[in-house]
């Protein structure tokens, strides 16, 4: 039934789309034209049928659900159990952190004492070397050259070389009188 005047232009593609979405968005004239023009109506219906069939096919080609929905069985996912799990996880994490921190601190302390002992040993060795140098600053080679290698000779040997005066050992006499006797 086309009571529409042949001279009047038909609705364009964009107006047909608008009509499919919501025909109240068309102007009054366009709505009137659509109501009267069979060509525009069929254009619109063809598109609407395709879209309706799209929905029907989607429903037909979607497999049906096999499982029944049961909200009662979802206790495992309840907020309470999630909260409990979070608290437990936090407690375990805290214990791990405490144990690890204790171990770390202890190992650092042990490392500090070890280093201190090593420093003391090295200092001791250095002091010994310094003391040796104070006693005999020259190396052994030079001591041999100057003939002072036997500086540790005992007092008997000195008495043999320099007899004592009136039974007083010479060295002792030197110490007592404070003057050179030879």
């Amino acid at each position: 039934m086309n009571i529409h005047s042949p001279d009047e232009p038909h609705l364009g593609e964009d107006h047909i789309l608008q009509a499919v979405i919501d025909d109240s968005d068309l102007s009054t004239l366009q709505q009137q034209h659509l109501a009267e023009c069979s060509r525009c109506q069929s254009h619109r219906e063809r598109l609407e049928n395709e879209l309706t069939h799209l929905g029907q096919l989607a429903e037909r080609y979607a497999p049906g659900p096999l499982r029944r929905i049961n909200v009662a069985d979802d206790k495992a996912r309840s907020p309470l159990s999630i909260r409990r799990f979070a608290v437990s996880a936090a407690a375990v994490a805290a214990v791990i952190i405490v144990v690890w921190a204790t171990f770390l601190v202890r190992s650092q302390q042990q490392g500090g004492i070890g280093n201190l002992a090593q420093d003391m040993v090295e200092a001791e060795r250095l002091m010994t070397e310094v003391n040796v140098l104070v006693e005999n600053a020259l190396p052994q080679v030079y001591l041999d050259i100057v003939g002072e290698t036997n500086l540790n000779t005992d007092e008997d040997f000195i008495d043999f070389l320099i007899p004592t005066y009136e039974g007083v050992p010479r060295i002792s006499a030197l110490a007592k009188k404070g003057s050179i006797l030879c």
Partner: protein
Amino acid sequence: MTDLVIQARDGNRPAFEQLIECYQGDIYRLIYYRIRTRMDAEDLTQDVFVRAFRSIARIREPLKFRSWLFRIAVNRVNDYLRKKRVRSIFKSSDEGADVQPVATDFQDPPEALEQVLKEDFWRLVERISKKLSKMEREVFMLRFLDNLNINEIAQILKKSESTVKTHLYRALAKFKKERGLRQFLQEDLT
């Protein structure tokens, strides 16, 4: 239906179970259309109803229960797809593992034909989906696959009706140019 929602809101579990009966199919299909995996669609449907059950006490307008439930489903699907995208960055080898194979060899001819048509249909839907923007795709699917009206879509997506119409208009303009899908639909209609 509003009475059922009010009863469920007041803690009546059988009333909520009746609501599940009413909407399970719609929600499952909404999810399946978007993720195309039956097992995951079932899991997500279960999850949607569990979430709805937990928060139904807070629903203010029982009349809007349907759009409220669909919004939960749409958001849940978006979360799922987002996580899937992130996972696909790290793991690309199992891509397509979810796709159910077309087992035509051992099927009777009518079933095999149906299976081929089904595969073709979803391939064509996938093709047009890729040509639409995210919002265009969402409004197009909600309108023509999930059969919701403009007002419900606006509520689900929290957009104005004019915004929904604009996206729908653009989506339809692209659909009109999609000859493969339109030809498939026309042939199936005749």
